[in-house]
């Protein structure tokens, strides 16, 4: 459905007396992957690894510097504004901070109705009927229609955000940390809702999160990012049971499990994530990797298929 090849996005850093580019943040630095119709692709990585930038670049909310994004056979990065607007009808995004992504001065009806107005999808009674349908679909009540966002709890505001995203009848839904600001019991409600909607409406999800437990619960396949690069991609069971990249391995071993003292073997990584301004040469993980070889400091490993559907970028796995 979506085919991303060698996507790059660098943000310039300007400085000096005469403002000129002095450096660049390599937020997304040559990422390629596919999303199949009807699946959920989980995208994990630590803060600053470029997962949000990647999602935004795919939707062209920010412009990519290089690479291609093919959506149902069409090259998205070459479309003009008018054409892109049509394609956007099929893609929607749910944000991390539900409160902050809703206009506080608009009623719920207007928030959900706005995409309908912008794309001229429904008017008058038809518009109202559609808004009501969406409100009920996400588990809110009709009387919520004329209320304002501040009158809702965190879980309810996220439901409004989801209703707004569904207003255009999207095929692809990008959910960027949709539950990280919610409490445990509310989190379960939203995750179940997302799963139900996927089944009913045949949606495809790009599910972005740093929380590996919810990613495992939601995803069919999982992609792991590290400092702007995709380092591993595999079906969900495969990646959790048989991680091939040392970073993925450490990441999975670091998840605290309820009810368990850390009896299992845990890999504690040294140091912190390098800055994407001046990433280390070679494999970006090499300064923290317990298995670094000389080649890792020189050559950036390519993403190769080590097993059917299991891709990894590591010199150890060649």
């Amino acid at each position, binding site marked *: 459905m979506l085919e991303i090849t060698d996507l790059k996005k660098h943000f310039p850093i300007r400085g000096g007396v005469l403002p000129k580019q002095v450096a660049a943040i390599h937020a997304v630095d040559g990422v390629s992957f596919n999303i199949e119709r009807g699946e959920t692709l989980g995208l994990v990585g*630590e*803060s600053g690894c470029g997962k949000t930038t990647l999602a935004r670049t795919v939707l062209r909310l920010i412009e990519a510097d290089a690479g291609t994004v093919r959506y149902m056979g069409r090259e998205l990065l070459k479309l003009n504004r008018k054409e892109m607007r049509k394609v956007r009808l099929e893609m929607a995004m749910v944000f991390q901070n539900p409160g902050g992504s809703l206009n506080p001065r608009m009623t719920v009806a207007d928030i959900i109705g706005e995409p309908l107005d912008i794309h001229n999808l429904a008017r008058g009674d038809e518009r109202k009927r559609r808004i009501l349908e969406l409100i009920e679909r996400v588990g809110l009540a009709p009387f919520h229609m004329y209320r304002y966002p501040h009158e809702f*709890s965190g*879980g309810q505001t996220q439901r409004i955000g989801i209703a707004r995203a569904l207003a255009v009848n999207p095929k692809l839904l990008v959910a960027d940390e949709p539950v990280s600001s919610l*409490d*445990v*019991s*509310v*989190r*379960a*409600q939203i*995750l*179940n809702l997302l*799963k139900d909607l996927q089944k009913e409406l045949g949606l495809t999800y790009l599910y972005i999160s*740093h929380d*590996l*437990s*919810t990613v*495992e*619960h939601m995803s069919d396949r999982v992609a792991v990012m590290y400092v702007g690069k995709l380092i591993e991609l595999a079906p969900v069971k495969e990646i*959790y*049971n048989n991680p091939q990249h040392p970073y993925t391995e*450490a*990441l999975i*071993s*670091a*998840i*605290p*499990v*309820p*009810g*368990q*003292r*850390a009896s299992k073997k*845990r890999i*504690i*990584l040294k140091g*912190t*994530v390098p800055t994407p301004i001046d990433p280390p040469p070679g494999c970006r993980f090499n300064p923290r990797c317990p298995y670094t070889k000389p080649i890792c400091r020189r050559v950036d490993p390519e993403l190769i298929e080590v097993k059917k559907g299991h891709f990894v970028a590591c010199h150890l796995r060649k």
Partner: protein
Amino acid sequence: MGEALLRTNGLKTHFFTAEGIVKAVDGVNLRINKGEALGLVGESGCGKSTLALSILRLIREPGKIVEGEIWFEGEDLLRKSDEEMRNVRGAKISMVFQNPISSMNPVFTVGSQIAEAINLHQDVQKHEISERVVEILDKVGIPDPSERMKDYPHEYSGGMTQRAMIAMALSCNPRLLIADEPTTNLDVTIQAQILELMKALREDFGASILLIGHDLGVISEISDRIGVMYAGKLVEYSDLAGIFEKTKHPYTQALLESIPRLGTEQERLLIIRGTVPRLINPPSGCRFHPRCDHAMKICSEQEPPLIEVGQGHEVACFLYS
């Protein structure tokens, strides 16, 4: 049962707002033994942070500790003068907060802030202070501590700032360390480092720990016993095995089933219907009864007391009394 270091008796902390009285902590009996780590879990607004701040008597207007006792090393902290309390805070009980960057003063170096804590509470010669700072920063794993102590907080990463906060909290050898969501803002691999550090330091310093959080995974890493809070009340209290294997309270059960677990295939997660009640006007009787699948008539009429149902396992629920 070990010797108690801290005990709260019927502690009530209420906030007097224009809308009404918010009963954030409403009659909590808590006990932390010497050398023990107690984990306190609950969803946001259940009163766990208010409880921690009450122990340090850091509750500000319009909040007030209205009732109860806080026994610490044989003395009731609520009867102490402000001056006496200052000697407890930082020296005997210290605290690490959720947001490490904003708990440091941006215009002083990290080293000088730790030195200040040592200088205030300990009788140490001036020239020895900086040695102590280097020593403690080294202990929490700051690389090159004699240089890095001259840095300002913004020059530290999130994980390093949290390490420095822990260094500051431990600088005076406290008897009790309260850590309020110490790893919530950190990345998974950094979180693992900090948890590992807290475990090692606990053995080194022999301090008791009160760890507050919402993530049952993080809590289980460190805690010997776990207390579950709901709407200002302690609803269950037991060791790790008791909470996870012999779960008693319906809220604890629901909480455990609503989190996705690694390596298990759950098509749907359990949902606790409704939302956390507002503490201005909490439900009558057991505060969980409107959301509970096992609610009986008595649950809406009377408040269940915390009773012992097994060795050191206490629960506040009428199903067990």
